[in-house]
Structures are given as C-alpha cells and as structure tokens.
C-alpha cells in the first residue's frame, strides 16, 4: 500500500518535474550564454499554451501538432525579443537594461493577453487526458506519458546538439568566453540569437504541455516561472545538468509534499530548499569549479 503510494508520487513528480525542466532549461541557457535573464520567459510559456489551445480548439488540429505550433510560436517570440531587446541593448553598457526591458515586455504581454483572451480560465482538453493506464496499483494518463517522452526526447536532442555539432560546441565556447569565441571566427551575435530562439521555443513547447495540467489564463506562465527560477538557482545558474536534476527534484518535492504534508506547503518546502542551497552550496547541485589558468 505505502509502496504504491510512493510509486504513484514518483510518477507524478517526474511528470511535473519534466515540465519544470523544459521551462527552466530556457532560463538557464540564456543565463549561461548571455549572463542575462529573460523575465518574459513566463509569458512565452503562456502564449505557447494559448497558441496550442487555439490550434486545437479553433482549427481542429491534433494535440501533438499543437505542441509543434507552440514551439514555433515560442521560437518566433525569441527572434522578436532578441531583435527588439537583447541585440540593441547589448552594447549600451549597463547589463541591467535588458533585464528591466524584459520585465516591461512581460507586463505588456500579460496585459495584451488579458485584453484579447480575457480573465476567464480556458479548459484545455486533450483526448489523452482521459485515457488512463493502470500498472501495479498506480495510474497515469496518456497525457503524462506524452509529457515525459517529449521532454526526454527534447533534452536528448538538446544534449546531442551541444555535444556533437559544430554549432553546439560554438555555443558552449561563447558561453565560456565570448571574446575568444569571436577570435575563432564564430559570430557571437548569431549564437546569442540561436540561444534565445532555442530557449523561447522550449518555453512555448512547455506551455502546450503545461496547459492541460494548469489553469489556462493569461497568467498561467507566472505560476510556473517562480518555481523555474528556484530550479535554475538550485541547479546552478547556467548549468544544464544541474537544472535537469533540480527540476526533477522540485517535481518530486511537490508531489510528495502534496501527499504527505499539505499542497499549501509546496512553495515553503521548495523555497526552504532554495535558501538552504544558497547558504550551503551557492554554486548549485553540480558545481563547475573554475580551474586556475596557469
């Protein structure tokens, strides 16, 4: 009996954690390469969710295709925010400027979505939410299988891209030393653009998968982003492996807190962990120690 409950909560935690990882990865990638934070990331998640919703419910598209649409919408938002904010402000001197500008973008997007979509929550139904698997006393929906599989595939693709392609290696080089990357003949501006587009595409895609789980309103992304920030910090800012680990950890904490304590305590437990991390291990779960260049 207890074993079943634990197994069930592990399943729930991994599903939730996969979604958090997708959202947090974008944040950590942008930080790793630009040392910047995109505060509109949450709203890219939200708009990705709405894009998927309208593609499915208005245009009659399939859910899986709507995930691709959300990914595309996210990518386009990435292009736009790079052209409008990150690229022009990069050479203006202060590193605070893009950060503040993205807060502005976030506010604008939230209010625009509020004006267009209204405050009433949308019910995002997918045919997969209804179909349930039962295995050894635990149960999970087809929707959660899709979430986990798509997340694993995305993370594997991203990892292969970073590890095995010329462009991925160039991206890591830009993250480590932008000036020297330029000396290799790499155009850092192009790779920064690529990073922002990738991150935003991840956000949009996460939106399409979160929407059936969350309440879809113009503020849907905001509820997730706070946890995503906590995950990025727990995982170590800019650290991809740490972020994946921390995302799953937070997902598990959330499901076990719901089961054994109280759902209302989730944020307290997560941010308690965040505080402990900041005090005892501020470099994150997996810390990259900078070696002396001698």
């Amino acid at each position, binding site marked *: 009996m207890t074993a079943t409950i634990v197994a069930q909560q592990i399943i729930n935690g991994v599903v939730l954690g996969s979604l958090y990882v997708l959202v947090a990865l974008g944040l950590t990638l942008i930080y790793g390469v630009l040392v910047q934070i995109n505060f509109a990331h949450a709203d890219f998640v939200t708009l990705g969710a709405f894009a998927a919703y309208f593609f499915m419910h208005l245009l009659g598209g399939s859910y899986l295709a709507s995930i691709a649409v959300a990914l595309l919408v996210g990518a386009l938002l990435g292009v736009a925010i790079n052209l409008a904010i990150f690229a022009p402000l990069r050479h203006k001197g202060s590193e605070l400027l893009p950060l503040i500008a993205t807060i502005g973008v976030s506010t604008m997007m939230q209010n625009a979505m509020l004006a267009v979509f209204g405050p009433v929550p949308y019910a995002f139904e997918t045919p997969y939410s209804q179909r349930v698997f039962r295995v050894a006393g635990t149960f999970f929906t087809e929707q959660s299988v899709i979430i986990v599989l798509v997340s694993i595939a995305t993370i594997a693709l991203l990892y292969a891209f970073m590890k095995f392609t010329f462009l991925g290696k160039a991206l*890591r080089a830009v993250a480590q030393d932008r000036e020297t990357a330029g000396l290799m003949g790499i155009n850092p501006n192009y790779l920064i653009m690529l990073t922002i587009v990738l991150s935003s595409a991840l956000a949009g895609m996460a939106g399409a998968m979160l929407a059936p789980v969350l309440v879809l309103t113009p503020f849907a992304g905001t509820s997730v982003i706070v946890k995503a920030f906590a995950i990025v910090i727990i995982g170590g800012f800019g650290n991809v492996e740490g972020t994946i680990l921390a995302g799953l950890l937070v997902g598990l904490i959330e499901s076990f807190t719901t089961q054994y304590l109280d759902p209302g305590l989730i944020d307290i437990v997560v941010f308690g962990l965040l505080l402990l991390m900041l005090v005892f291990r501020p470099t994150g779960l997996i810390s990259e120690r900078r070696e002396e260049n001698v």
Partner: protein
Amino acid sequence: MSVLLAAENLELAYGELSVCRGISLEVNDGEIVALIGANGAGKSTTLRAIAGLLTPRGGAIRLRGEDITRLPSHERTMRGIALVPEGRRAFPFLTVRENLELGGFKNRGDGAKVKRMIEGIFDMFPRLRERASQNAGTLSGGEQQMLVLGRAMMSEPTLLCLDEPSLGLAPLVVRDIFRTIRTINEGGTAVLLVEQNARYALDTAHRGYVLQTGSILLTGTSAELGKDPRVHEAYLGRAATRAEAQ
C-alpha cells in the same frame, strides 16, 4: 616582399583612457615581427586592435590593402588573422579536441579536413594527442600554450598574432614554444609577436618595434635593435650587455 598588414597612425583608447598614439607598423609576408616594450607600453592594446577586439579611435588597419579597421574580430579571422590572446584563453570546459575543432570553425563544413588538420596539430604537439579528450582547464600552462597555438593554426592564418606566449612558463617550455613559432613561420605564416621578454623576441623575430608609453620609439631589424644601447639598457638588462662585451 609585399606588405601583409599595415597599421597607420593608430589612436587607441579604453573609454577615456588614451593608451596609444600614432602607432604605425607593418608586417610583410613571411616575416616575424616583434613588438617589445615595458609593461603598459601599449603592446597588447595594439595587438587587440589588429585582431579586432578594440576599435581604434583613429587611424587605419589594412590587410593586403583592404581596410579592416572596423571589421569585427570574427570576420578578421575569416580573412586570415589569428590572435593567441594574453593569458592563453583556452575554453576550459571544452576538451582539447573540441578547442581545436573550434579553431577550425572556418572549415566547419568539411569535417574530414578539420580532422586531418587536428592530426597535423597532434603531430606538432604529441602531448595534446595524449590529452585529446581531457578538458582544456585541466592542462598545465605549457600544454595550454601549445593548445592555443594549435587552435590558432587551425584557422589557417596568414598572420599569426601572439600576445606574451612566454608569460608564466618555465624556460624550457618557452624555448619549445619559440622553436614552434619559428617552424610555423617557416611554413609561410607571418607572425606578429608581442613579448615582454625582449631577448626571446629579438632572437626569434626578423624585425622589431620598440614601444614606449603608447608610441613607437624605435624600429629596425632584430640585430640592429639588439645592439641599440637604449634597448639594451631598458629591456635586455645590464647583465646581458656585460655578457656580450666579454
């Protein structure tokens, strides 16, 4: 001999702080040219301007007659200028092989060529082959210097700029590095060398420029500069003068 690189009347500054005034220098095809001078004379700053890491406030830089003064560094690399920056700057969390691959970014469309060139670098520095899959950050200073030299050569430069290649290295390692620089030069690559160790620099270079507080004080062949009493006094030290007098 034709002029490969010409810097004309460069004015260089970091923000409000003027570092170099009226720097003019030339590097011909196949030459090794040394820039020597005391700490803070503006040697590295001049090299950074040539590589495109610092935009000059005035003057012009030409590569085979083409004005490249405002070109970003990555486009200069594509045109054949490679810089090994001060402090080496290997990518610490990329492996030795990945560092070299990125040096060959120009040829990223031709994987077989990049592989072949990496083998060539490994033949030049067998130590790097042993450490191919190690992160560059775990290498010793001398190994890192070999790595960044190899990385720069991966872009097939016509002009190799080196900023203080001897800095922080043991004398034996320094000797190896300078021997390699000569070998690279014999292969047809022109070299512009910034070096605080004037003895090594003048032994390696064909010609040199002496910088003092942001201006060129002297220029000549290495032999001429080596004999100049001002160079002797300031950069080679009295001990060297005495040793040669004997």
